[in-house]
């Protein structure tokens, strides 16, 4: 592998490394969460978010959505309406639970008056009384969750993707623009990129011709593209494209 592509692999590994279930596995046998540093907690959340590619963007968007406290039904509805949810492998409640268990969300229980129910307020209550007391359950992104959302924002992922392969910048931008014009099929994207020099790369010292799907994949995992009956720009992708245009 050339030094260039080797570095690329290493850096691109940040999400994948975070996804590596090692962390989860070791965490199972490792210290309690309370013993972890803040950064370790963020990493642990990252593991949970990206461990399954088909759920990755849904979980990330949920963390973003819940920066404002959301009721369970509202959060579930939000998840179910995400275009990425169509391919997801878990149901909305399971995803919320995963995020909560990974420390990205906290559940917020409120009484009929809208007051947060604290552990202290439950002292001396029976189970039935507790049930009666809880009027609503909401979810809110924790500080750890917010830190993760910011660290893995589409913009930072896009900047990372461009910095890893600056020679592809022009083609990334053209692809974003192309998709921004109208929803595109993969075949249309293939036609756009066919024969372009940036499809040539070097892997393990070998010249290789990449498939156009590489560009789609990089932009999708950066959060710039989303599939909804064709490839479309995400809001973040549109913002980024605008920013790139202005900077030029």
């Amino acid at each position, binding site marked *: 592998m050339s030094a260039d592509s080797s570095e690329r692999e290493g850096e691109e590994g940040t999400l994948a490394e975070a996804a590596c279930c090692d962390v989860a596995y070791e965490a199972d046998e490792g210290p309690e969460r309370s013993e972890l540093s803040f950064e370790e907690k963020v990493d642990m959340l990252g593991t949970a978010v990206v461990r399954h*590619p088909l759920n990755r963007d849904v979980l990330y968007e949920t963390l973003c959505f819940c920066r404002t406290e959301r009721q369970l039904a509202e959060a579930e509805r939000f998840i179910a309406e995400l275009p990425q949810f169509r391919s997801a492998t878990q149901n909305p409640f399971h995803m919320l639970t995963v995020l909560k268990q990974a420390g990205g969300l906290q559940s917020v229980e409120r009484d009929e008056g809208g007051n947060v129910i604290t552990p202290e307020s439950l002292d001396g209550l029976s189970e039935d009384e507790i049930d009666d007391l809880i009027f609503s359950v909401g979810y809110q992104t924790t500080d750890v969750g917010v830190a993760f959302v910011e660290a893995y924002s589409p913009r930072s992922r896009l900047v990372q993707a461009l910095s890893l392969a600056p020679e592809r910048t022009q083609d990334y931008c053209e692809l974003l623009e192309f998709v921004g014009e109208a929803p595109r099929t993969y075949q249309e994207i293939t036609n756009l990129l066919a024969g372009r020099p940036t499809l040539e790369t070097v892997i393990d010292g070998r010249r290789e011709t990449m498939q156009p799907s590489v560009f789609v994949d990089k932009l999708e995992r950066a959060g710039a593209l989303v599939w909804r009956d064709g490839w479309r720009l995400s809001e973040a992708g549109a913002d980024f494209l605008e920013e790139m245009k202005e900077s030029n």
Partner: protein
Amino acid sequence: MSKSTLTRRSFVKASALAGAAATIGASMAGCMQESAPEEELAGTGEGGHSSTEGLTKMKTMCHGCIQMCPAIAYLKDGVVVKLEGDPDAPMSRGSMCIKGLNQLHTMYSPRRILHPLRRAGERGENKWEVISWDEAVTEAATHIKDAIEKYGPYSFFCSVGGGGSYSFMEAMTLPMAFGSPTVFEPGCAQCYLPRWSLSKLFYGGNDQSVADSAVREIFRVGDANKTEMVVLWGAQPSVSQTAMSGRAMAELRAAGVKTVVVDPNFSPDAVKADVWLPVRPGTDTGIILSWYRYIFENKLYDEEFTKYWTNLPFLIDPDTKLPVKAADLFPDFQQTTPENTPAYVCFDLKTGAVAPFEYSTPADSAVDPEIFWTGDFNGKTYKTAGQIYKEEAEPWTFEHAGEMCWVKPEKIEEAVKLYAEAGVAGIVNGVASDMMESASQVPLGCMGLDSIMGYINKPGCTMTQYGKGNQPTTRPVTFNNGFAGMFSPMYGIGAVVGLSDAENEAWARGEETPVGKADVSQQKLANQLLIDRLGMKDHKGLYAWCHSHIPTVRNAIATGEPYKPRVWFDMSGNKLAMLGNAKSWYDVFPEIDYIIGQYPHLTSFHIEACDLVFPLREWLEEPMAKGTQLNTTWLMNECTHIGETVSHSIPAGRVVAKCAELMGGELPGLKPGFMGQATEEEVKAAQAANVGAESWDDLVNNTDKYIPFTIPEDEYFGYNQHETVVDDGLPAGFGTESRKIEVYCQILLKLARTGYPFCYPEPQEACEDYSPICTYIEPAESPLSDSEYPFVLTSGRVPYFHHGTMRHAAFSRELFPTAEIRINPASAAELGIEHMDWVKVTSRRGEVHARAYLTEGVNPRTVWMERFWNPECFDESQPNPTAGWRECNVNVLTKNDAPFNEVYGSYTNRGFTVKIEKSEKPANVWVSPEEFEPFLPSAEMMAEPITEDVRF
């Protein structure tokens, strides 16, 4: 095997199959010659002959390994309660080994999957939801369709391998149906492909593998057996295929056949050998070259055969490294043989000059070719191929080989004398070399030795051809791309070796040729898939089975480049047990969108990775009629059937059909594409057709009429086929370009440079030339230079398991409960390790634990483990979520990065360095018999109702 070992039943009191388990002991005893006579067991309760009165008897066939022994199943109320070997089988003759007998445990194991499962928790959690077949097929198809729609066809990939189901054809063709080039098998380059493929390139014939049933001649029955001497090179049939070729080898030895065993481990075959060469792992080619040197130096080769039936007398162009054609050096030369049989050039001893060397019988030859010659012609220095080989072998004296390979020189000499001085002999080349960088070098060397000795197409030789139509009538050719080159006529790809250039060009245009016409309507797509397949630029030998290079696939998943395989259909086995450097694969699971598995049981791979699992039949349920022993074909019967399990091709068949429906009726790949059945009716009809029955019902109702399906011996076995005069008036020869055995494997050079004959008509990019002869390669991690990791680890089978299977079988696990590492007592003493101490074994990839088994049967610097050990001991009582694959899996240690075998890309499963230290027993590893109780057949499983075929 001692009687006491076989009858040890410490856990069986807990078994609901106590009677059946007792039968296991009896049948194993019948398998081994050392068993006590039945009369001695009478009245002891250990004779094992439980009554079969009132039981239903069904003839079937075992599939506990890749050799399939005919068997008899006894059923009570639809439950199989006893198994025994079928005495009518010509090789196994009533034997079954522990793997087959354990079917009673695997069939009714609580780990069986009886219904489609969808993951209910996260990957790594053993939480599943039972869903309907329709739901499962729709879900799998939807994910495949979505991925192809979003990222193109290359996003789909497939794999197989690991035992349990054998969907090789299905795995090879499923990606083709979707227009994807990506499929892999942990076997393939690491198990059999190098030997299989090289035999086709080398002489267009069968390879030297016993385990894969390629070698048959030496196991002929009765007076027809002329075997005198067998070399088992990296093979241990007594362990790997105990009841069939293992038993047959015991019989050969008992009949006086001499054997040499080359194996780092003192295997049961080594114990019984006349000479055992405990070679340093990965250095086999050193011994091979010393044999060449000795045979050349002492003129022990078959001179006439070598001169006229091999290409060793050909002059080699020093610039191209290819044999010189007569027309190149002699412009006025007029070839009298057909264009498909080129004339080469030799040094003629009759005239003392360089001369054209036309193909003919030895008697009709115009020249007396010199095998070893160096000289000038037209201002250029040429060597014969024989001379090049001789110079390669020259440094390899017995002393040098002994020093490099850790074998006593006098033993090497004793071995080669036994081999070279026999009337007939043959080398059995086992799997060991496939698992090393020298994966192409060893078979080249072993086949070359048999060739120069003339041990070809003779009674009693391993490289003697057999089969229906064994007498050629036309010039032999070799088709390439897939089994028997099946994809060549199907898609118009792959040159036919033995046709002339002009004939191959016509073949590629879809025109009539001497071997018929290819359908070239999809040639462009088929050829493009060859070019784009991962790892093919460097390791073009993988084209033979249309497989991708596994480490390159892994890296493509990790980096997304040059394309990202992202929806995975795995067709068998536990990939965490089977793939080299298993953790490196585990690390990329989060990069794979969706993983579909199919298997009869849940394994740690399914728990760690799969999103959906289809349930498959065990072999007692599977209809199949294609297992062979010698010239006979046997029936694997559907003895019973529980749950919603299906034959192994059906999940993919259903998913393909559903995808076509979702995609508007058309798949984006090749047609016919997927080659497997989609319904049980189709499966059964295909199996019935294999043995000439009208239908499955006809077959099972008239089993004795059709089974065994037998080809008469005089049609099946034949000799000196290459001498048969065929329709062009010439002796048939061999299916190579030169029509001779290409001991100097010239086609490997073309393969490296263009992908020929596989990647044709459009070539693949060139890579470094492959070596056309056997050369020595020092293993990349060498104990000669590695002070940090001082031991060299190799591996092999134990009798209790096949590939990744049987770890759920309580009986096998009681006999071999944990990973063991064989260590020489002297080395162990230096490390303070005693017999059965726990040790930590560390390689540059990771660390695992095993119990130390102290034995003089390995070199003090060699250690040995079971090749696919992994414990599969997950259970709800165990907090360990990994099923132990991290703690005891030998494939955590193995090396899956470069250097690879140049031709096939084989990585290093054997012959890498490790260090060892005493340790504590890891948590969650089961050892005592009682711990395996969760694996025992449960009352619930035994009570499962007999089910009909799943209807779609």
